[in-house]
């Protein structure tokens, strides 16, 4: 397994926010983290990225225990694609993408033509080559996400961590971005992403980790985990999972919160 979490614990101050999470994902997996606000998704990300120390359990990427790695070694294994990234200065997209090479440099190095070529290649992989010389600050939210994905590719990590990629995007851009993510998974990367929409894993994810209050409600394939019982347990409101067909007859799962006043038995 590429990514293995065993009974991971961590938090701030006195209390643990993540209270024993175990899960695993391999090459080509898209692992969706699902759960209500404050369930510990962000904390779990910080533990994964090493910006918060583990208080228990262990995280292995590619067989290597992350708590024993330097930031530089860790950067060769796992890359972070933040949701909000507003640079102070107006860098070009190429400047931003090439920063992904930092972990490959010795302190006195600066990007050379090899690195710029890697940046161009990474931009091409996400179909964003035309943005290369544009100002990053002038891009839309979706284009910025593409640039940051290209930066992660440039970093040559195997695991990508995306913090709520749909949060600042409109519906169409979100769909486009998810196609890129699916494409990355198909190329052998492992993508871990957090999301607020429970039907999201069913359409894009290959694995789901459903969390509540720092604990795991369920981990497995979307079909097994995204059930009315589990969702009600996690979110505390009744929900239905309905299978619908799109115009081509493909079956898809949709989650619906059940409205109390619609109950037939009250009539």
């Amino acid at each position, binding site marked *: 397994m590429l990514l293995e979490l065993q009974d991971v614990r961590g938090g701030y101050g006195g209390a643990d926010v993540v209270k024993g999470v175990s899960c695993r994902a391999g090459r080509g997996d898209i692992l969706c983290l699902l759960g209500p606000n404050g369930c510990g998704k962000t904390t779990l990300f*910080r533990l994964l*990225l*090493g*910006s918060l120390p583990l208080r228990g359990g262990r995280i292995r990427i590619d067989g290597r225990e992350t708590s024993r790695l*330097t*930031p*530089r*070694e*860790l*950067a*060769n294994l*796992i*890359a*972070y694609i*933040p949701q909000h*990234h507003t*640079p*102070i*200065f*107006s*860098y*070009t997209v*190429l*400047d931003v993408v090439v*920063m*992904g090479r*930092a*972990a490959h440099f010795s*302190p*006195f*190095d*600066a*990007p050379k033509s090899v690195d*710029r070529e890697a940046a*161009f290649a990474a931009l*091409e992989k996400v179909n964003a*080559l*035309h943005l*290369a*010389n544009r100002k990053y600050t002038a891009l839309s939210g979706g284009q910025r996400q593409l640039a940051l994905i290209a930066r992660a590719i440039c*970093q040559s990590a195997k695991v990508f*961590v995306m913090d709520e990629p749909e949060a600042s995007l409109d519906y169409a851009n979100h769909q486009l971005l998810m196609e890129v993510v699916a494409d990355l998974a198909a190329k052998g990367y492992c993508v871990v992403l957090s999301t607020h929409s429970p039907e999201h894993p069913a359409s894009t994810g290959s694995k789901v980790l459903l969390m509540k209050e720092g604990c795991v409600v369920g981990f497995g394939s979307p079909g097994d985990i995204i059930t009315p019982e589990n969702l009600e347990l996690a979110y505390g409101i009744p929900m239905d999972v309905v299978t619908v067909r799109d115009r081509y007859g493909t079956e898809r799962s949709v989650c619906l919160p059940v409205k109390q006043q619609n109950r037939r038995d009250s009539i």
Partner: protein
Amino acid sequence: MPQEHVEIQNEALQRRRYRLLMLGMLAFLIAAVLFSFWVGYYPLTPLQVVQAFLSRLGWRGDVLPQAVTIFWNIRLPRILSAVLIGASLSVAGAAYQGIFRNPLVSPDILGVSSGASLGAAFAILCGASNGTVQLAAFLGGVAAVSASCLISRRSAHSQTLSMILVGSMMMALCNAGVTMIKYIADPNDVLQQITFWLMGSLTKTDMDALRWSAVPMAIGLAVILLLRWRVNLLTLDEEEARSLGINVRRDRLVFIAASTLLSAAAVCLGGLIGWVGLMIPHMARALTGADYSRLIPASAMMGAAYLLLMDDLARSILAMELPIGVVTAVMGAPFFVWLIIKRREA
């Protein structure tokens, strides 16, 4: 892919443009240096300047002895000082704006100039020689920044925020000390000296002061020039920079140390010269783009040329010499207002 071709060509074009720009800046700086030998209270013709220059290199010809003295003992140290101070303040300012992730930061933010002022004022009060005053200023500046860094480590806020908070406290404390020293100083002699020192002026620069200020400046400039691309990484959010494999706190401290050497040496050579470190990086950024690989060399050259020309202005605009700190402030303050208005529109 044709698209790939276009973008790569475009990028190569920009790099060629940058090289041309640097050549242009270098030519401008050299022209400014030559021009500055000619400007001043004692008129030297361009021919006399050349003769004075050659006379020290073994040329035996008919040359005014005053011209030789003015060239080598007065104008040369002054021009070199202006070039070095301008470059140092601009490079330190550019680095600070990046590592504090704030475009409105100037090199004094951690208290380097206030600490240097306190050191200098105290030394003048004790009746120290010119060299000792400069040493005291240098040490005062370094001490203030070190104290800011050490105290801010104990704060629970983010590193940049706590440093800026502690830095402004340090500035207030040092300024209070300077005021106290001015208050008890003899108004006929010591107070005047302190006031003049604090004004920022290149009148008293000589080869001795220049020689030993150049050492910390050279170290600071070399460190920042060699590591300059990494400033880009520190402009990112701390967590994001870490995920790219950066030891954020260590890298930031390296840049702070190098910038402090630069600004402390600049202050002890020329006193308080404000606004250069804030203004020049912005002007350079407008020409080269945000990438620090290009920004730092451009800031160094533009800062050097700018301060040199400001000093020429200070010593030629009126019959008496103006303090250069006043000239740069008069030029810089409106620029700052313009910057704030521009930011609000953006």
